[in-house]
């Protein structure tokens, strides 16, 4: 090739790119209001796939993040049980500690609840995550057997202070299940389906057991009453424990 041809060719390509910004890019540009060409479910809007030049007026507008995007964990609580967040009821965490153990940088601290008898209960009374250590790997959410901890989509976490405010406690970590369902629709649908299948299997099993008990001459009504009584006692114990904790907090605070 003659000397200078490569340079001209390179300039040509650069020039073509510049022209294309006007002929293709600006034509496909979304309105300034920020309605992107609706790439729902698509990673970050993928402007380069949909074409066109796009400027996102961050922070006024934001690109959607894909469902699996993960940034710091949060804890789930079930709203339908009608309990306030200040109480620990409805919180799905059972303080089994798997997330704290699997966490590669060990950024999770959990205090397991104890009953009046001093025996551990399946409830967490305190839960801390040090966000300055967390590497957002998602292991805690992946290996949680109770779907109690999930990865968040919130990534704007700057603060004026980099010690206490970066350690999230239980209150800061709790989010309703509806929030999880909103940001992880596919994941949530799968969980609901799994729970339903599990419940159904349990019902079938129980029915079979009851039938077997009847066949063996037992009294299903009495059994059911006994189970109800046991459940009530358990709930009472839990209430007592929470009340005791609250009293202790108020006393100490």
């Amino acid at each position, binding site marked *: 090739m003659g000397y200078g041809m490569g340079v001209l060719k390179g300039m040509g390509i650069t020039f073509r790119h510049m022209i294309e910004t006007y002929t293709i890019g600006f034509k496909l540009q979304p309105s300034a209001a920020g309605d992107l060409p609706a790439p729902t479910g698509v990673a970050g809007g993928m402007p380069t796939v949909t074409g066109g030049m796009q400027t996102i007026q961050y922070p006024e507008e934001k690109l959607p993040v894909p469902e699996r995007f993960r940034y710091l964990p949060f804890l789930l609580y079930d709203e339908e049980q009608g309990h306030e967040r200040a109480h620990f009821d409805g919180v799905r965490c059972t303080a089994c500690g798997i997330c704290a153990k699997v966490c*590669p940088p060990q950024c999770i601290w959990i205090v397991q609840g104890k009953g009046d008898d001093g025996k551990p209960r399946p409830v967490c009374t305190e839960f801390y995550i040090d966000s300055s250590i967390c590497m957002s790997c998602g292991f805690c959410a992946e290996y949680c057997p109770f779907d109690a901890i999930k990865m968040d989509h919130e990534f704007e976490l700057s603060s004026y202070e980099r010690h206490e405010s970066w350690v999230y406690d239980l209150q800061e970590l709790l989010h309703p299940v509806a929030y999880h369902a909103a940001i992880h629709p596919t994941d949530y649908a799968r969980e609901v389906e799994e729970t339903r299948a599990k419940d159904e299997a349990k019902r079938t099993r129980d029915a079979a057991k009851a039938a077997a008990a009847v066949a063996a001459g037992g009294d299903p009504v009495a059994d059911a009453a006994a189970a109800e009584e046991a459940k009530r006692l358990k709930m009472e114990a839990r209430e007592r424990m929470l009340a005791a904790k609250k009293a202790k907090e108020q006393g100490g605070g």
Partner: protein
Amino acid sequence: MTKQTDVVAAPAPADVVAAVHKQLGERVTVDDGGALVVGPSNLIDVVRALRDDHGLDYLANLTAVDWLDRFEVVYHLCSSAGGAPIVLKTTTDRANPRVPSLFGIYPGADFQEREVYDMFGIRFAGHPNLKRILMWEGFAGWPLRKDWREAYFEQEHKPLTSRWPDGQFFFGEDKLTDWGSNTKLPPAYTGAEIGRPKPQEGQYVVDIDALRRGTSFGSDRLVVNMGPQHPSTHGVFQMRLVLDGETVVDLEPVMGYMHRNHEKIGERNLWLGNMPFTDRLDYIAQLGSEWGYALCVERMMGLEVPERAEYIRVIMAELNRIQSHFWSIGFLLNDLGAFFTPSLYAIEEREIVLDLFEMATGSRLMCNYMRFGGVAYDLPDAFMPLVNVLVNERMERAIDEIDAYLTNNEIVMERMKGVGVLTPELAIAYSTSGPVLRGSGVAYDVRRADPYGIYDRFDWNVVTANEGDVYARYAVRIGEMRESLKILRQALPQMPAGEILGGKKAWQVRVPAGEHYARVENPRGELGYYCVSDGKANPYRYHVRSPCFVNLTSLAEMCKGYKVADVVAILGSIDIVLGEVDR
């Protein structure tokens, strides 16, 4: 320019071991794991015989294991014609660890021996420049010895018991253990040396007085510190140049500014816990790094990977290779002074690949996607249509454009042709790998030489170029992107349905006692993981053979005789990622 070669099959390691044993008799023994064991006094002879008589011309990996009563130095040797590596071990006592250096046989042992010295304190007799490489020169202690404790040391192994069930939060800095911040200095070290280094034996390769000798005015040569803060070094990396006018007489890479003792962290972690840390090695080629580690542990556990997971891994790794090569070509041009126009064109497609990664794995760079026995999640529904468009339409166009833009551009050719030449013999001797090795005409690609995954099912070629210069490495990268596309085009339509994880999904895995060295072809070369298990929940030894780190061994050789401006191009052509160099 580039040619495509197939690699011939080499003899199996067991046959080599048997042949060596026959030839060398009682000087070597074979241990239970099939490794050759040799005493330090016989090491040089045995290694020379292995290289000259058995064709093991390539030192793939060199590291050590602390067994508390002794040190074991482990060598993985293989043939540049291909084949699985054979393992050679020698032991030395812990009180006065000393092993002969292999520098004279394999110059590629240079940095790897320095690293072992730095981390374990094992002295390599005969090494010309044995000094710390990753840690700073005033550091006391040997960080990878089992009795060494890092700053704010809390407990030997994770999970730490303070986290559950009574996990009251504390800041590590506030709760100093007996180890405290653990900053110790060598006995005679006052700190005054910092900034005014006093040359001592073996410490500086540059002898200021020697520089003056042989020059008529006694003022001709100059030592220039390029970096650590220099835009051409792709991170915090320093090159100590000895210049004669503008010509490079000698060069010494200085690294370790981002050293975080990755391997020690890895030995404290649970087996699974290392997976996200591997992303932080080569963050431009994160999925390949994960694959190497997953491969190593899977082989130790004897896990089967389901078909679909194998395909997903190939697709992810090849997309990763393409985007990584785009990045490296773009930024090589930046180093040549073509400020950001080519690199931004090159990383346009990379952004889409990263968006796809984010969609499938949850993160653009720190994917944490591979698991032992498969991958973490199945591909989302929207993934396949997009990746098909990308692979079948966009990628090819983008590679063509880069090719048309740069390959025959006379400025590019002037700057890259004939610069930084590394002959095939030296490339092998220096243990280089990846495009650096293949750019020197050696058709060595781990995917073909020591196949893993399902690469043997696809029709693709190992791309090589013969010139051994910066341009050849560039051309190899362009060729490799096309080969990766070829693999992707075959893999995508074949993608089967089914399971994505072999075995049970578990956060705790039982890895049987034993050891393994697994390697993958990452975009930058041979990435190896050497793991030793004692059957417990954490790896006993976890070593990363970083291609960038080992490739840097040949940097001085490549730069000698060229100008300072060429050094920038040559470093760019090795394509280092400091996260992996420093570990």
